[in-house]
């Protein structure tokens, strides 16, 4: 179910403040853990470092990403293929 319109999009206030603060000038990546924060139009052009539980992954926000959550761009799982068959491990990667 989607979030009620009354509440508006969920935004991490502190993060939004940080983005506003560096608006325009120095676009240093902002480290953040708030994967659940919605990407606002104001965030476009900012680089975030979004935590995936282990490391911070760089996410450069483009216009297309508005409305998604930061966490969607920082995958939490690594799939290295199943054990065994080498040919089979290569096949899904080629797809």
């Amino acid at each position, binding site marked *: 179910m989607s979030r009620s319109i009354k509440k508006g999009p969920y935004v991490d206030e502190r993060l939004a403040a940080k983005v506003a603060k560096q608006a325009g000038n120095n676009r240093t990546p902002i480290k953040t853990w708030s994967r659940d924060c919605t990407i606002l139009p104001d965030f476009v052009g900012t680089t975030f470092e979004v935590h995936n539980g282990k490391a911070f992954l760089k996410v450069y926000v*483009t216009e*297309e*990403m508005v409305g*998604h959550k930061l*966490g*969607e*761009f920082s*995958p939490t799982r690594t799939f290295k293929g*199943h054990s*065994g*068959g080498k040919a*089979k491990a290569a096949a*899904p990667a080629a*797809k």
Partner: protein
Amino acid sequence: MPRIQGVDIPPDKLLHISLRYLRGIGPTTALELCEKVGVDPMRRAKTLTDDEVAKLATIIDRDYLVEGALRRFDGGNIQRLKEIKSYRGERHRKNLPVRGQRSKTNARTRKGIRKTVAGKKGVKDK
């Protein structure tokens, strides 16, 4: 045989049922359409006059997203998800369920027919 939006030819079914053979038109839109055009949804599709068919076609063309256009619209949305490398896009790319369903078992609709892996538990080695 009435023909709306190119290839679609709904046969001797009730009008509101046969309209649903168009991709993008479901139960609700079918009835809505009948009302807009002013035809009885319980009539057979073959009893439609050319005039009524033309009317239906223009309204569908103008107000609804159907068939190819709809498919392109959906495809474009999926393409967008892939391009921004979002989680959902990644799931589409891998042909796995997109909305958080389990994929340890089941998920056959997305994963397709079972591919048996030799040596896996429960599978007899030959």
